[in-house]
């Protein structure tokens, strides 16, 4: 079946054959994969999808690959949790958590995009994949390159924390630390991708890579019994995820997989790096780049490539957006852990905190369904919590020591209770 028609410029509409290119030669606009939806209608059905594997590849007809998946056979199909406790705490009746903090194999939704990108890189015949990253993307590209037995070059700013370096190096890539300002690192990587014949997942492979994010949306709709929720709260960095979830919802409507899709897409960002939410709040399609200053490092893109398209997705869907402070982000992480037993990273803290704010402001009515998009794992960013966690009790190995400690804890809890009741 010829489902792929190559690439198409998002700005001027010019068409290109399928190739590892990402920018229109005429207007320098971004290129996007062009599908033949007519051909897909009737072929992609609820039944055909249900017959597929429990991974992102059950949606392969809507992904830009020609053959079979080369890597990441177990990526995706993460839990959609119906929340009781958090819903109660936030005062809403129907709340779900899409939990990509347990995405296989590197614990973030980036595995979805990278599995598609690396498969595509193999189809194009590349022997090397690359990316420029400070976190989740670096982990995922290195892991999938290892699985595909491809060489990988991962570019990072030289001052990256040790934890993130280990989480990448363990997969044995070539890790290139670049000394320079952030802008210099950006420009260099852009130039490297022009010069070397490598599959730079988020540069020359970007049109294919970004399509992987659609699977996050398909899964939510399928897991809801092919129903679209009234609201989704999505964390934004480059703005690709929210754009592609919105695209997934529209595709599912066009293909007749869902009847009515009136989902309002809400953008979640940190106050210290929120250029997309600023566009939404100011109601302007002009993106003003910012210098990031937030603990939500995985959302710290000051000049997002898809900022304009993310803004458009929010507007078209009738959604809104909100900024949250670093304190609110930490509260968000703790709230999700305390109520649902899910430990997410700072990006998830942003999403939870933004959801809370939007509910309190009445933007999300209390009787409408909401999906909170959790996209990464808390064990990658434990440092942000170090000052906020209670210390444990320490005792000698005797029962009487334990009894005393327990009595002390109960006494303290009683005092605390009295104070709160006053």
């Amino acid at each position: 079946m010829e489902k792929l028609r190559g690439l198409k410029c998002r700005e001027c509409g010019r068409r290109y054959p399928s190739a590892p290119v990402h920018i229109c030669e005429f207007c320098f606009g971004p290129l996007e994969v062009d599908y033949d939806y007519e051909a897909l209608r009737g072929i992609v059905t609820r039944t055909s999808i249900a017959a597929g594997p429990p991974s992102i590849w059950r949606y392969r007809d809507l992904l830009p690959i020609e053959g079979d998946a080369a890597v990441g056979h177990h990526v995706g199909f993460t839990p959609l949790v119906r929340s009781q406790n958090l819903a109660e705490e936030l005062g809403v009746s129907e709340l779900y958590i899409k939990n990509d903090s347990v995405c296989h194999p590197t614990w973030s939704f980036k595995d979805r995009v990278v599995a598609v990108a690396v498969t595509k890189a193999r189809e194009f015949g590349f022997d090397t994949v690359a990316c420029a990253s400070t976190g989740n993307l670096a982990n995922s590209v290195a892991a999938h390159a290892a699985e595909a037995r491809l060489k990988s070059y991962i570019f990072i700013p030289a001052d990256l924390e040790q934890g993130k370096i280990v989480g990448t190096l363990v997969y044995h890539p070539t890790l290139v630390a670049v000394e320079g300002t952030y802008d210099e690192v950006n420009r260099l990587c852009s130039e490297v991708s022009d010069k070397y014949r490598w599959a730079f997942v988020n540069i020359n492979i970007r049109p294919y890579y970004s399509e992987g994010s659609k699977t996050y949306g398909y899964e939510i709709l399928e897991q809801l019994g092919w129903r679209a929720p009234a609201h989704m709260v999505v964390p934004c960095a480059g703005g690709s995820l929210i754009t592609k979830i919105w695209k997934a919802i529209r595709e599912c409507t066009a293909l007749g997989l869902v009847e009515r899709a009136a989902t309002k897409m809400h953008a979640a960002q940190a106050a210290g790096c929120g250029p997309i939410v600023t566009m939404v709040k100011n109601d302007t399609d002009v993106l003003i780049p910012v210098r990031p200053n937030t603990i939500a490092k995985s959302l710290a893109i000051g000049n997002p490539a898809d900022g304009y398209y993310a803004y458009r997705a929010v507007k078209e869907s009738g959604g809104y957006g909100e900024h949250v402070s670093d304190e609110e982000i930490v509260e968000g992480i703790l709230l999700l852990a305390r109520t649902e037993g899910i430990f997410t990273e700072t990006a998830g803290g942003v999403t939870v905190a933004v959801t809370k704010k939007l509910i309190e402001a009445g933007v999300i009515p209390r009787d409408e369904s909401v999906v909170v998009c959790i996209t990464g794992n808390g064990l990658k960013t434990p440092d942000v919590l170090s000052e906020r966690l209670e210390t444990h009790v320490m005792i000698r190995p005797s029962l009487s020591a334990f009894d005393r400690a327990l009595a002390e804890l109960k006494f303290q809890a009683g005092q605390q209770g009295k104070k709160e009741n006053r």
Partner: protein
Amino acid sequence: MRVRLTFPPERIQEPIIYHLVKDFDIVTNIRRADVKADHGWVVLELEGKEENLERGIAWLKGKGVKVDPVERDVVVP
């Protein structure tokens, strides 16, 4: 070299690109632009000697113009 220039409000009225061409011997080729009352950006191709490009870009930055690859931020968290 393909770049995106973002102009601060106070520079919108100035003939920045004219000076880039004239003073640094750079050839420019504008592909897309959007200039509003208070902000503006232009996506263009710059051609010239490596050192002229470097000097031209340094001059732009000195003027408060943001110079980015057309892809914008390439380093992804």
